[in-house]
């Protein structure tokens, strides 16, 4: 077996040193009846690299890759171009095959990257501090709700109807067990967000208001009034962002008063990969840092006075605090954070702004053309690179019909909200820099034929 270096002669020599007659003797603590006598029956035996690659390629070939068709899906995961150097660098063995940097003297590469990543995320979000990443946006969102509970010692979270329904589901799952109350609602196909409902719902028991920006339908709402109302009542504003590229053009949540900003970082540097691994971003105010979950890299000096970086404030974390930790999170998304950081370094402010402008221009173009189709209504009056359409037909079958025409035309709200019949004609379309004019034309003509 190509991954196992020991020869039979090595094994015998080693058993001799150990003083055991056979490897099975080393398993003597396992009760006899639980020990398997040979390879598990019915499963295939080892295979050559070529054979395995052939089988996996066969599986991959059954999928339609986003780059092979006109592609317009978003809703929490976005197709962007990733510069070739990003994937090259993350495959360097020193990054790819390193562990969590618990021995800082020989992990300065990872630690400095994390410190830079934290700074990039904090600046992108307009916050003071960010952590070294979470699993993804949805789990980061729940962690933010939990953190707001710890800070305010209150247990009611008011959740915007514009929050990604999967994120809402994750919160609901956890709240059942932690005793938090969540006030939720389904979105409406209107240009207005539910900011007024949120502000009206805030009371003295509210721990936080959770708002997605831009929201699940792509709408962009002013966060300042919500922040003011929440903070006046002693509650926190948690802002969720699933499309970080948008923040190249729109105001940061931090500058509008958000207390905790979390989100999905996939758009920058991380491929679609059918939903994971992605990278959760998490930022807040400096005064709340000790309530923050997840790893943190911090600056310090070594014995010779040279600047270096270490994991710090670990007394928040499970390996030190055990049941009193701020979270149970251990493994994070280190390699995806690296990819994010490299891509962000390549972009810089100039590149990110340029990328964001390109996305917005493409989306405006597509929105105009699509809403010109008779019977199709553009829901949004504000959006970045994603918007909702109300079709004259149900959107779910329309999406499948577009597949027949070779177009991946968007996400139907019927898929995301199966119980909300009023949303059945809603289609969310994301248009990034990867969509060409021809792609947009293909989408327009496919949809036109279907709704006619």
């Amino acid at each position: 077996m190509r991954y196992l270096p020991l020869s039979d002669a090595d094994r015998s020599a080693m058993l001799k040193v150990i003083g055991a007659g056979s490897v099975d003797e080393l398993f003597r603590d396992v009760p006899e009846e639980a020990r398997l006598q040979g390879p598990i029956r019915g499963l295939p035996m080892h295979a050559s690299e070529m054979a395995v690659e052939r089988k996996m390629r066969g599986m991959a070939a059954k999928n339609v890759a986003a780059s092979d068709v006109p592609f317009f899906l978003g809703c929490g995961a976005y197709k962007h171009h990733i510069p070739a150097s990003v994937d090259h660098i993350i495959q360097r063995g020193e990054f790819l095959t390193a562990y969590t940097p618990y021995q800082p003297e020989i992990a300065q590469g990872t630690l400095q990257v994390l410190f830079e990543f934290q700074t990039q995320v904090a600046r992108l979000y307009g916050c003071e501090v960010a952590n070294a990443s979470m699993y993804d946006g949805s789990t980061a969102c729940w962690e933010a709700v939990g953190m707001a509970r710890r800070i305010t010692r209150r247990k009611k979270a008011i959740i915007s109807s514009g929050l990604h329904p999967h994120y809402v589901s994750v919160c609901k799952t956890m709240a059942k067990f932690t005793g938090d109350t969540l006030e939720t609602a389904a979105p409406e196909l209107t240009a207005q967000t539910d900011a007024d409902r949120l502000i009206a719902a805030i009371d003295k028991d509210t721990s936080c208001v959770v708002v997605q920006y831009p929201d699940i339908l792509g709408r962009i709402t002013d966060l300042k009034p919500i922040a003011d109302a929440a903070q006046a009542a002693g509650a926190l504003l948690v802002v969720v962002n699933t499309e970080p590229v948008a923040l190249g053009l729109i105001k940061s949540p931090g500058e509008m008063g958000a207390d905790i900003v979390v989100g999905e970082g996939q758009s920058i540097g991380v491929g679609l990969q059918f939903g994971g691994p992605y990278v959760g971003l998490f930022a807040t105010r400096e005064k709340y840092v000790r309530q923050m979950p997840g790893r943190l890299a911090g600056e310090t000096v070594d014995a010779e006075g040279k600047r270096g970086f270490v994991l710090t404030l670990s007394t928040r974390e499970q390996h030190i605090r055990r049941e009193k930790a701020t979270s149970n999170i251990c493994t994070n998304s280190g390699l995806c954070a690296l990819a994010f950081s490299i891509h962000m370094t390549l972009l810089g402010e100039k590149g990110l702004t340029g990328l964001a402008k390109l996305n917005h221009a493409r989306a405006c173009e597509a929105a105009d053309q699509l809403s010109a189709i008779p019977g199709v209504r553009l829901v949004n009056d504000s959006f970045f690179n994603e918007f909702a359409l109300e079709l004259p037909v149900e959107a779910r079958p329309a999406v499948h019909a577009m597949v027949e025409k070779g177009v991946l035309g968007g996400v139907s709200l019927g898929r995301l909200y199966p119980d909300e019949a009023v949303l059945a004609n809603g289609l969310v379309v994301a248009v990034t820099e990867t969509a060409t004019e021809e792609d947009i034309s293909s989408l327009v003509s496919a949809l036109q034929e279907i709704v006619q």
Partner: protein
Amino acid sequence: MSTPNPTGWRPTAPSTLETTAVTTTTGNRALMLEEPLLFEIGNRNQTGVDFDPVKSGASRLGGLDRNGLDLPGLSEPETVRHYTRLSRQNYAIDLGLFPLGSCTMKHNPRLNEKVARLPGFGDIHPLQPQETVQGALQCINELAFWLIDLTGMHGVAMSPKAGAHGELCGLLCIRAALEARGDAREVVLVPESAHGTNPATAAFCGYRVEDIPATKDGRVDLGALKARLGPDVAAVMITNPNTCGLFEPDMKAISDAVHAAGAFVYCDGANFNAIVGKVRPGDLGVDAMHINLHKTFSTPHGGGGPGSGPVVLSEALAPFGPLPFAAKYPDGSYRLIEEESAGEEHPRTFGRMTAFHGQMGMFTRALTYILSHGADGLRQVAEDSVLNANYILRSLEDVLDAPFAHSGPCMHEAIFSDKGFAEGLSTIDVAKGLIDEGFHPMTMYFPLVVHGAMLVEPTETESKAGLDQFIAALRSIAERARAGDESLKAAPVFAPRRRLDETQAARKPVLSYNHPAPDGSSTGLGAHFGGG
């Protein structure tokens, strides 16, 4: 002095001059290059990407246009250099033995990386219509069946994002199952030697945590456990093989007692590498166990993640598992069971615990690894990992105190204590000494039940020659520690950094670079060496 060679050939020869400590202008030491922070070398007007010109139109951003981001950029060559230089300050499994106990740092095959990047896997959106992702669902489903077969369990939840998230999934299943029978229980029992994630997870989902003690030979105290079981106990979390590197021989008796008390057995599968293909946890009465794909099934650790933590479930718990999951239908098609169809197909689910469907990029890698090894190769993995650990244990027990060695062989990791070190020298000094010898240290000060613990997990990846070199290095350092060689306290001296001041880092946290990014209009050393 010879005359210049007309060809220009000027052979070098070793100098006989004594050299003292050399300092360099740059701080670099030949191939060991210092690298400033991105924020000290980049500027806001530099970028490493080019875009097509944008047709300018009216903005529809709701009047919330942003004014500046303060994010520096670098050109592509500068970017590649910045990260390549940083990478060289890292130790990695690609460089050498990485004996972190409980972490299973094994070789990461590059075929896995190649497969995960096939456009059919790497470039598909999680919400694509299901007819366009049949191969992805097949991959998830096939991996699921391997995990079920390898563990002898009834079902598997694939969506948990990492080990601790898997623990959460298992406990939520247990809680849902208890609630379904109207049985509110509040306590989760966790051995003292457990990973910190176990008690943290139990607390995270609202349980009260109580410790159960270990016996003096490093196992769960069955008597104490039995005495504590009662109607308030929801679950017992056991790590098997445990964090002392020992198999719990009473596992079946523990499970039986827990079940008799109406509770469930959660097994931390972090150490599954020791028993994959040799023992099936399902045969020992386990109800739920997470499997760290980034440990046993070789997906790369990536400097701290991502992981993936599928949870295998017993018949009693499987109906409560999370959404979504991939199911195979008799016509050979695959379907994702999501919220929409859960009512008919999975009505008792506790719900969703993450957006989308889990760590697909880890599933492709893990399945590739599993198919490469097959049932026979995986069994060999467990045998070689246990053989390697015992070889280390027996080769060093004369110089390092091995608190459980008398009771027999270890599993995939060998544990030592600091007993016998000279006054003033401790585990951390040995660990840092190993760095100078070119190895990553072992896990130190864990588990807590062993004084100054050193937990060494070589994995099956190591050759005998590699182990012999490691053993020789650790032997020499152990001997220095026993002899009171104070110079160990200065270690490491050859690493990119000497010991770092972690106290200062925690007392005055500097968690981001706090100077504005330059706009590139002026240059000066000040910007490059400004510090944080």
